[in-house]
């Protein structure tokens, strides 16, 4: 419905294009890759980009392009799972704490503080150490930390929204708290949630790579971006393109999601519709 306006937003368009490309590549991985991801060729390790290997080969002579494309599946899966779950948990906590206030708010926010005050890496490492590495467990390690942000943001949004007249109006017609929270407040709090989620996708990808760097990522031969980058840095002096390409892949993807998030924020912000001001104070 706001498509034309949305298309005017450069960040949104670029972000969406990048994200969409990555997602499509991940989905159609078998059709766009040229080599098997576990196909080793020890005679041709550390090759620079060639016609056969468009992004070169890694430390086992495997095709980097194919591994990155398949790696996108893993990274995106982890990103999507962790964002979906943390958004769901955080949003629920934030809505409930913000709407009911009082001791419910106090207890929920103290719990949030506990998770926020934790050094994130300790929690993540502990979870992976306990449960073993795996897509779900790595996602869980990210979720444990990530949900707090949603909780805080949604709570403060809810605190504002619950004072809105249309929420009062809903109470005046006798609507139940559940109806008010989900029909009146949630749809209006969705903007910041979507923005956080798109930014969270990027954060999740970076977190996964940090876990891999510390040795807590998915086990090989899973072609995760984190492994590829953290292994690439081992060969940074001799085969710099390995880490540069892997790093750039992560960076561009995260950039894409961030731009998407920024763009969405601008488009979804209702204030953008009607605000203007004497910003620069230039004489006009």
């Amino acid at each position: 419905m706001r498509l034309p306006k949305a298309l005017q937003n450069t960040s949104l368009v670029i972000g969406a294009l990048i994200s969409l490309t990555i997602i499509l590549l991940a989905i159609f991985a078998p059709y766009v890759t040229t080599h098997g991801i576990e196909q080793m060729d020890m005679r041709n390790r550390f090759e620079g980009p060639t016609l056969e290997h468009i992004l070169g080969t890694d430390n086992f002579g495997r095709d980097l392009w194919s591994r990155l494309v398949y790696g996108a599946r893993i990274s995106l899966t982890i990103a999507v799972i962790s964002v979906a779950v943390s958004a769901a948990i955080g949003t629920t906590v934030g809505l409930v704490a913000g709407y009911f206030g009082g001791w419910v708010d106090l207890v929920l926010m103290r719990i949030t503080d506990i998770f926020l005050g934790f050094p994130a890496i300790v929690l993540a490492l502990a979870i992976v150490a306990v449960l073993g590495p795996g897509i779900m467990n790595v996602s869980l390690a990210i979720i444990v930390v990530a949900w707090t942000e949603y909780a805080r943001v949604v709570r403060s949004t809810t605190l504002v929204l619950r004072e809105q007249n249309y929420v009062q109006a809903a109470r005046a017609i006798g609507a139940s708290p559940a109806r008010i929270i989900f029909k009146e407040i949630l749809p209006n709090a969705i903007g910041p949630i979507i923005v956080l989620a798109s930014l969270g996708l990027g954060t999740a990808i970076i977190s996964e790579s940090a876990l891999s760097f510390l040795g807590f990522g998915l086990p090989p031969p899973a072609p995760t971006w984190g492994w590829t980058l953290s292994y690439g840095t081992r060969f940074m002096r001799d085969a710099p393109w390995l880490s540069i390409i892997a790093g750039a892949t992560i960076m561009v993807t995260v950039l894409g999601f961030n731009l998407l998030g920024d763009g969405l924020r601008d488009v979804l912000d209702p204030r953008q519709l009607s605000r203007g001001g004497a910003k620069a104070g230039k004489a006009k």
Partner: protein
Amino acid sequence: MLSYVIRRLLLLIPMAIGMVIVTFGLLLIIPGDPAAVLLGQDATPEAILNLRNSLGLNDPWYVRLFDYFAALLRGDMGRSIFQNQAVSEIILGRLGATIELAVVALILATLIGLTLGVVAAIRQGSWIDTVTMLFAQIGVSMPVYWLGLLLMLLFAVQLGWLPAIGRGVPLPEALLAAVTGRPQVLWDSLTHLALPALALAANSAAIISRLVRASMLEVLREDFVRTAYSKGLRQGRVVVRHALRNALLPVLSVIGLRFGALLGGAVLTESIFAWPGLGQLTIAAISQRDLPLIQGIVLTFAIVFALVNLVVDLLYAAVDPRIRLG
């Protein structure tokens, strides 16, 4: 005001208790036996059992938890299993380095973030805005450890401008030395700080700059900015004195939260730059399953984080006269 501070500090107690319990629970189920790690591969099973008993690791969990709290009440965080030293001593020995790194990174991030954010905001829509915000985007998109290694490769190895690793004289001492006529000590200290602080700051600088920009754009639209212009004030004065001061308010609380993130990010940065702080210690403690030390670190992080946020809130009240703490 005082009662507010007291109340906030009191609220720290349940939080700390919660964190101790959560950490304790995690450590109970984490695989890996500190006794076996301590004794190494050569250890006989009897030796391991013997050590477990003497460390109290074979006591039931509630006894251990109770003992831990009891000790905590006496101000005792226990002894490190591996370093044969009181946990509090070990942490205090490291805390300075991490705080120094995090504070310098925070200052760096704030300075960079503010400058970029303000410039982008007052030149909204221009190429300066685009370039600045692209930089910010790249800053948040880079894994910290990768950025760290790249910086080290460029500035230490290729160009040889800065030391690659380690810490110079602690900054407070170095400042003192500089005052007493030995500026080169401070210089040495700062050159060591430069790369790790920059690597650590990049992400936060990017976040802060985006936030400052958004906040500035918002404030620049406020009526009182128009009022300031209507008085005939020069643009620079309006931007700095009227707009920026107000724009900083929402940024302030985020800066507090960033400090927490910086403490967390220090784990990676410190291990890359061999910075002798809590971050490195954290990894070591986890990889050795040094339970009392891990507990102590988590508790320390929590307290530092809570105190920083308290300070931020107090600062907030100091900068914004509308806020009353009571």
